[in-house]
């Protein structure tokens, strides 16, 4: 395995920085808009074999729960046209082990770390947030109110605006740092939950998590995933994600992290134009571990071609 060389672009004078800044003044500054999406980037060191992780804008951890979770049975992944369906089911060592073992590993990179947290009830989120509030290495929380793979939790929170509001507020009360609420697209109108998060004091929202989906093994004549249902991600869902970002941008005052199927610089530009302030790279990492580097180069090419020297000027530009 050869580690690709990171291209330093001091000479080019293109400003890729982006600031996730909310009305209330809180903000998170990234040197570029690329954030690894939760659950698709391991702990950092796995991807670091392929490229210099410090080239990223920020790193998001795999979902953390209060107690350790074994995750779902395998098969946990299936493929669909231009997409993948996963039902990992939040396998993780629990927040304490995360702090003790995983966090120090990820913290060695010079990157803002966002801790993606999940729970089975509102108190879980609060208890995790309390523990993580003490960790200086963490730049913010990404509250996953959208994982479709755990029963009794996740999905239910994310589809009821009232619930989104309550949980966000509770976390806000115990966590002084930056809070991103990650929302589910499995909903009639995502702006209702996005607005609820904003009203409860979220500093940003992340759109979107996976779409509820399944595949049937026609030879065995039963669901292919051990868990029956899974979440659809990858290029297949991009047009849905772009639409949700575009639509939410018209109603929200807090910034949006856009994700869903991003594979190229053009895809990133599309999300920025729709109104995203930063973006998440998810499934593409599974296919191409060093994708972030290629995507960064493609973004720069676009900016050069369009004679723009600030990436931030693209944000929301498709609305004019």
């Amino acid at each position: 395995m050869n580690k690709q060389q990171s291209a330093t672009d001091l000479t080019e004078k293109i400003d890729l920085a982006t600031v996730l800044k909310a009305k209330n003044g809180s903000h998170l500054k990234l040197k570029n808009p690329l954030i690894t999406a939760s659950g698709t980037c391991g702990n950092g060191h796995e991807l670091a074999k392929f490229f210099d992780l410090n080239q990223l804008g920020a790193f998001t951890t795999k979902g953390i729960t209060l107690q350790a979770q074994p995750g779902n049975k395998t098969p946990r992944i299936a493929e669909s046209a231009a997409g993948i369906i996963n039902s990992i089911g939040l396998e993780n060592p629990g927040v304490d082990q995360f702090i003790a073992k995983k966090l120090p590993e990820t913290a060695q990179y010079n990157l803002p770390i966002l801790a993606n947290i999940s729970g089975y009830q509102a108190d879980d989120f609060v208890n995790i947030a309390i523990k993580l509030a003490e960790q200086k290495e963490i730049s913010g929380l990404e509250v996953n109110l959208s994982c479709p793979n755990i029963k009794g939790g996740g999905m239910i929170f994310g589809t009821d605006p009232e619930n989104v509001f309550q949980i966000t507020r509770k976390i806000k009360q115990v966590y002084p740092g930056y809070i991103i609420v990650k929302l589910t697209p499995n909903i009639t109108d995502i702006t209702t939950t996005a607005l609820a998060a904003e009203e409860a004091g979220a500093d940003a929202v992340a759109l979107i998590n996976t779409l509820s989906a399944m595949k049937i093994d026609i030879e065995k004549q039963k669901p292919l995933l051990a868990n029956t249902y899974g979440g659809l991600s990858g290029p297949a869902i991009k047009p849905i994600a772009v639409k949700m970002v575009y639509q939410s941008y018209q109603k929200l005052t807090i910034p949006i992290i856009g994700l869903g199927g991003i594979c190229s610089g053009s895809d990133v530009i599309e999300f920025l134009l729709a109104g995203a302030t930063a973006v998440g790279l998810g499934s593409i990492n599974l296919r191409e571990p060093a994708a972030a580097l290629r995507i960064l180069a493609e973004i720069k090419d676009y900016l050069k071609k369009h004679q723009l020297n600030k990436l931030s000027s693209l944000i929301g530009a498709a609305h004019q």
Partner: protein
Amino acid sequence: MFKIIANRLVGPKIYEIIIKADKLIEQPQPGQFFNLKVNKLKSKDPFLRRPFSVFDFNPVSQQLTFVYRVVGRGTEILSSFKVGDSLDLLGPLGKGFTLPENKKSLHLIGGGIGIAPLYYLARVLADQQQLSIYLGAETKTELNFFQQKFSELKCSIKLTAMAEKLDFKGTALQLWLKNLPANKADFIYVCGPEKMLLAVEKEALARNIDGELSVEKRMGCGIGICLSCSCQSVESPLTRKRACIEGPVFKLGEVELDE
């Protein structure tokens, strides 16, 4: 980049693909695998890579060989690749077989396309060690290519098929067990369908025979970032092992074989 220098049918739906690297690649260990991109240009479908174990590697010519069976869309596309096409692959990945210091009698037990990784292992071990190879498949024609390859090595080889009698008629496990009284095993290497792994593991552990097996889990990434290939360790449900990092080769009795 990697150029395809051969991609030919060697059995029923079974292909041998040989790839030449134009820059030095890390020498794979037997049991390690590569993750191959099975589409051309910028098509996003199929999206994921496909994992294949190393069938052979020549460090001098930098030639890497895989043997694969066409079972679905990805392998069908792979079989259509032509000599001269370039291939995008990642690897070597995962943990390979442990090479023994001074074991006396090594048994390699392979079923179906699971025979593929055992050839490279046998080739690496054949000079120093005493090898007995037990291979099984549905039909004789599936074994022809493997038989020919293994027979070039210094080792004893026995074949079985479900559909016809060769050295035996039945499973690779049955063939192995039948020969075990005469031919004691110090260490075994097993590769094949999960059901076969499970059965061989059970018999081996019952006889206190140590060994390793290679699992085939559906993989999302092959590099440890997605947890698709997570296996439950026998010790505890919360101790998980990724087939793509801590495996695909595990000790007998190390992980639950649950499929």
